[in-house]
């Protein structure tokens, strides 16, 4: 992960000396007898020609190739009279003169750039270079990698370079070198190393026993990691369920209102995110903050809709839960179609900020996706905030008082109508927060909410109505069970099995995991 690397120059050498070193290294490679100038026009040719030119330029080791190859990989290389030129800095160029590449050229570029950037002053580039060479696995890179490794100080990059070196050694004609490579790769816990080893096994009958042993060693180390990753997937699904269900835990659990429009509130939260992003797109200072800014916006928008719905409609139907169910279902239909008419039926694009993209490496090399890690944290934060709002604030106190005994609360001067509206708005606002999170993993379309509503109800019923702890444990249990079942039952059957499981579970405990007991709960 680039952000974890210190930028700057860890070696304390000036860049001039680096370039000198690079030249020195490359001069040590066998010369190809190809001239730089004759190769460059090939970059503007057909894909096959491009790939060849890139490979040769990488092998040639002429530092002049580096900016050209970099530009090519970033779609900034342009066709020019008799050759190519690099587009000036600024917005991405467009038009027919931009040189397009395909995957084959990209693979070649990765290897070539790897060679050229291995001693770059930028640690991120050195890391990418090491990864590029790992995939290239060419014996020709061995001296290059050994030299780079000798100078590398950042442990993380060293580890990647060692992997790349091990992979490069597998291509050596000398069996002893190959064996050393196998041993080096077998000492890691890297799936890439495993793939490289397996690829080598097919071409190298003599060493297949060594390879098998190395693969088995990696598999042992990977098993823990895979279990951890499955657990993470379960927690991630659980956090999505938790977010979707939390609002219900308030409106259904506390107020007893079945809000079938809850899913649409989630959807509106997601659309609010889209609107905020589009509104801030023009402002360079605010645009990177659009997602955090969408959080209060989504909360307020859905809370306002919730409050309006409670005061305007639901209020008239207290004590008639089945009618409320129908009414809120109707509200959901109307909201969905209105959004469809206003925003169109197509998916809306939501941009993930850079810190929510890619993977994050935890201790023991467990990799998790950033967006899902953030969503887990976000879900827990929302849960904590909900808990605090109910337990620690005046509003929470009044809310609990009204729930326990509306009449006495009213006689004590609590405006119960206002508390109802606020409670419902609060639950709806949490649905909006769920929408912000879901916009980062699901598509933002008018149907967004429908797929979550039944699952959320299941979480609340399973966890125990009215219990935040139950909702938390219910959501994570369902998420993890789902993910454990998925590999052997398939995604659909896993879900069906979980639904049936809940239906059977509430036979044994009709009030859910964390039931409120006593007379108050029964009436």
């Amino acid at each position: 992960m680039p952000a974890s690397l210190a930028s700057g120059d860890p070696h304390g050498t000036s860049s001039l000396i680096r370039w000198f070193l690079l030249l020195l290294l490359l001069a040590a490679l066998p010369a190809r007898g190809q001239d730089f100038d004759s190769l460059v026009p090939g970059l503007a040719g057909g894909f096959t020609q491009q790939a060849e030119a890139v490979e040769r330029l990488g092998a040639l080791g002429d530092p002049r190739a580096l900016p050209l190859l970099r530009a090519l990989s970033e779609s900034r290389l342009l066709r020019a009279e008799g050759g190519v030129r690099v587009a000036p800095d600024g917005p991405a160029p467009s038009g027919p003169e931009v040189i397009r590449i395909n995957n084959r050229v990209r693979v070649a570029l990765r290897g070539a750039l790897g060679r050229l950037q291995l001693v770059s002053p930028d640690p991120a580039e050195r890391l990418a270079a090491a990864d590029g060479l790992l995939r290239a696995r060419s014996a020709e890179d061995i001296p290059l990698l050994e030299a780079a490794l000798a100078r590398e100080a950042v442990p993380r990059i060293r580890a990647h370079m060692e992997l790349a070196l091990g992979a490069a050694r597998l291509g050596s004609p000398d069996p002893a070198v190959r064996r050393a490579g196998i041993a080096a790769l077998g000492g890691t816990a890297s799936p890439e190393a495993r793939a490289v080893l397996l690829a080598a096994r097919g071409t190298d009958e003599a060493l297949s026993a060594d390879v098998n042993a190395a693969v088995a060693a990696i598999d042992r180390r990977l098993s823990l990691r895979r279990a951890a990753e499955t657990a993470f997937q379960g927690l991630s699904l659980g956090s999505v369920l938790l977010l979707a269900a939390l609002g219900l835990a308030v409106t259904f659990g506390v107020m007893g209102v079945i809000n079938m429009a809850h899913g649409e509130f989630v959807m509106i939260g997601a659309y609010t995110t889209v609107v905020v992003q589009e509104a801030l797109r023009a402002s360079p200072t605010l645009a990177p903050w659009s997602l955090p800014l969408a959080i209060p916006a989504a909360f307020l928008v859905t809370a306002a809709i919730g409050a309006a719905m409670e005061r305007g409609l639901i209020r008239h139907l207290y004590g008639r839960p089945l009618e409320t169910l129908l009414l809120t279902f109707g509200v959901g239909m109307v909201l969905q179609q209105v959004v469809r008419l206003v925003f169109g039926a197509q998916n809306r694009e939501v941009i993930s900020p850079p810190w929510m993209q890619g993977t994050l490496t935890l201790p023991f090399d467990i990799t998790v996706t950033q967006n899902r890690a953030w969503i887990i944290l976000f879900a827990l934060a929302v849960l904590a905030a909900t808990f605090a709002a109910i337990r620690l604030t005046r509003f929470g106190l009044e809310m609990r008082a009204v729930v326990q005994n509306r009449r006495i609360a009213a006689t004590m001067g609590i405006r119960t109508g206002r508390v109802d509206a606020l409670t419902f708005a609060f639950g709806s606002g949490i649905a909006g927060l769920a929408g912000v999170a879901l916009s980062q993993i699901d598509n933002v379309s008018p149907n967004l909410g429908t797929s979550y509503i039944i699952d959320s109800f299941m979480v609340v019923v399973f966890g125990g109505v009215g219990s935040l702890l139950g909702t938390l444990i219910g959501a994570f249990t369902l998420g993890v069970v789902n993910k454990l079942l998925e590999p052997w039952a398939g995604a659909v059957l896993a879900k069906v099995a979980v639904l049936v499981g809940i239906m059977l579970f509430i036979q044994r405990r009709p009030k859910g995991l964390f039931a409120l007991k006593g007379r108050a709960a029964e009436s």
Partner: protein
Amino acid sequence: MSGEGLYLDGVTVVFDGFRALNTLSLLVAPGELRAVIGPNGAGKTTMMDVITGKTRPASGIARFEGHDLTRMEESAIANLGIGRKFQKPTVFDALTVFENLELALKAPRGPVACLRWRLSGAARSAIEATMEQVGLRERADDPAGLLSHGQRQWLEIGMLLMQDPKLLLVDEPVAGMTDHETAETARLLAGIAGDRSVVVVEHDLDFVRALGCRVTVLHEGTMLSEGSIDHVQADPRVVEVYLGR
């Protein structure tokens, strides 16, 4: 020992760590009229819930005529001959007075039996007699939803009578009644006892005095005192926890 009447011994009910009933014991002989009093939260209603099968005790024995009540469904307990009148009158608003009583009338209670049920002359006259007894003759064809509060209480008592129970549990029958109605009710309940056991839960001490029966005082889920109303009122513990408040 437990062959006849109602027998509770060591009954304990726990809600979330709170002991609603704590080793409660109670014996009601056949034909006996018994009043149960106690402050709010003493466990009176919970005791009735245990007897009628609504709540399962954590431990203890509850028997009626030798049947273990803690293992039976509410409907089965009702069919043993235990009738219950709730604190809040619960009659079926959508049905007429006549139909309410017809439902309560002792008859086969399965779905198919109900589908094939035809009102016989004997059944009709039994229902009419009860309507007479509770003074709702003129309202026979009115939906119960239209009755006054007092009339609903009476209808519910009528339904209890139609069930022909051996034991009646009556929860605060006179709450919200006028003085006149209260006196009438006391007379009615006293009249019912003798053929059947009656357990009355009440707050109103004047009413309990009017019943003129043995009184059990509950406090914090356990029996505090038992005896005549005068004996109970003289008990210093009772004075402290209940009457003294």
